[in-house]
């Protein structure tokens, strides 16, 4: 079964401050007849999680206000069920080890393309 057909029934949340990434991903998913929710900050994302169950959260590490890991930590307290993908532009040892402790399922290093994201999503779905 095609990856995006399986994703059609899932709720994907993107937390990313770069408008170009939010816009490009939204367009790609739309083109695949999928919908993703995209927000700019961790604070906005927490509001959404409070009211909705999410299946997959793709979060950028560097965010205005709380950073991606802080957001994931808080989000986990609200809803432990979702899969986590972390985007980073500048990976450091400290970030990686912190992410492992939080149980982040996939890392994607920027710059990335859809191939990287599709592979990560595919691995997550297989593990389910």
């Amino acid at each position: 079964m095609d990856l995006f057909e399986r994703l059609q029934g899932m709720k994907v949340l993107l937390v990313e401050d770069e408008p170009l990434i939010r816009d490009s991903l939204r367009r790609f998913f739309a083109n695949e007849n999928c919908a993703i929710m995209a927000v700019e900050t961790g604070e906005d994302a927490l509001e959404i999680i409070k009211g909705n169950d999410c299946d997959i959260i793709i979060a950028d590490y560097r965010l205005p206000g709380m950073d991606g890991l802080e957001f994931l930590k808080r989000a986990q307290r609200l809803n432990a069920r979702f899969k986590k993908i972390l985007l980073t532009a500048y990976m450091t040892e400290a970030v990686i080890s912190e992410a492992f402790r939080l149980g982040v399922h996939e890392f994607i290093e920027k710059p990335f393309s859809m191939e990287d994201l599709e592979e990560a999503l595919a691995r997550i779905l297989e593990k389910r």
Partner: protein
Amino acid sequence: MRKSMLNILAFLGGGVLFSLLSLLESARPGPDFSLQTSLLLLSGGFGGVAVRFWFLQRWQSREREADLALLVRTGRRIHQLLAERKSRDELLQGICRILVDEAHYFSAWLALINRDGALVRCAEVGLGEQFFRVRQSMEKGVFPACAKKALAGEGLVVSAPANRCAGCILAKDDADRVCFTSRLSHHDQVYGLLTVSTSGSREHDLEEQVLFGEIAQDVGQALYRMELEEQRAVTENRFRELVENSLAGILLIQDNAIIYRNPEQKRLFGPLPAHFRTDAFAGVHPDDLEKVEGAYARVSSGEASSVDVDFRFYPQQTPGATQAMKWVFCRASRIDYQGRETVLVSMLDITRNRELEQIVRVQDKMSSLGRVAAGIAHEIRNPLSGINIYLDTLGKIHERQENLETVGEILAQMKVASGKIESVIRRVMDFSKPGQPRLTLVDVNQPVENALFLCAAALRRDRVGVEKDLAGDLPRCRLDASLIEQVVLNLLTNATEALRHAEEKMISVRTVFEKEAVVIRVGDSGPGIPEDRRGKVFDPFYTTKSDGTGIGLSLCQRIINDHHGTLVVESSVWGGAEFVISLGPAPERNG
């Protein structure tokens, strides 16, 4: 003995002659030898003696006159010799030679002593072998008695045959000679002694002795002058050596012409053509020409007694050789040289220092860049990711030929993304570009905005709030935008680091026109800098950071000083530090 014999003969002659004459007169020859006859004989004898004395006196006074005239001429000859500036040995030998050859002295010798009284050099004429012994003992510090007396300051010492010392220099067969010894001195300074021997008849000739004393005085004065000249030559030599071996290039300018250059100056500037005009400033870097002309005009017109200026120049080229640009620090002062107004220029080659400074500047830029590298990576990788995803989307659209109406929007978005990347790269390149300050008319807000842009990501990451208040109507300044950007970025990263442990993380960036200056203020809400450390923070290598080099702020101040501005630290509204840059606006042209 001889004298008394002559007197007796004159007495007898006179007596006989007178009595014979009286007898012839009276015409009374006879053997009677009366009292009258005896009286006649006696008076005749005395008369004969008187006549002898009269003749003798006359003859002697003629001889003395000739002698004194000779001595005066000798004095003149010695004067001439002293004026000829010969070497000391030649001079001393010459004096002795004149005294013996041209005056009536049998011998003459001269000894010079140093301040400790030891023999330095001596000369003689007319003594030959006899002098050798005396010279040897004088070298051991034993002077003849007459010499000792003269050196002790007894004036002219006359040693007659009767009171000659045991070891007299004169041989026994010269026993009837008399010696005159005089000290050679000037103003209490004793240089040595002069001794002559002459006929014993001059033992009591005062005028002769006075003239000899005057000759000795002249010689003493000449020795004093020689000593002065030697001292002056030594001093001059010392100064010349100092100047010739100086690490600084030194040149003297009189009436706009170079009259002296020391070796270092020649090395620095290379050969100068004969017609070189100092006011043409050939070879000076065009950017520094105005500065150099102004400084030279100030000092040569007398407006300033001394000016300091640093400038770049290209040394005058020897044909076929390529000379690299040099950088010198130069001080020009007005001095009086040989009674004329002269400009003394001393210059230090600071090319190497400037090169090192340049390297440090570049390194500091690089370390600033390193500190914002994460931010820059983010700035590039984000739009690049966007482009990648848009391309994937376009690929899918092309493959399926669906949703074709969105292609235009996607292409427009991609253009935005690539534009973002381009602008980041340009800013980084501008920032790290090495080179000399290039002053252009710039709105100060532009480099401030650029610096804020470069560290925006880092500020966001560290959750630092920025209060930005840039005045819109600032007069433009002549400055190197990339250098000012470097300074502001440095201040911003410093502020961010100061906020690491702060509760409230705020940075304020303001530009304002106040007190005829364009002012940039970068403040933070960190712990601030105590009053007593405010002067120190600009010192090179002063740092409170464990990983800092202490170069950043000193370099910032250097850059601002190069722009003729000031950089100081004050307190911010939050009680933290506030760095204040003041820059003079460019003079308005055409009103």
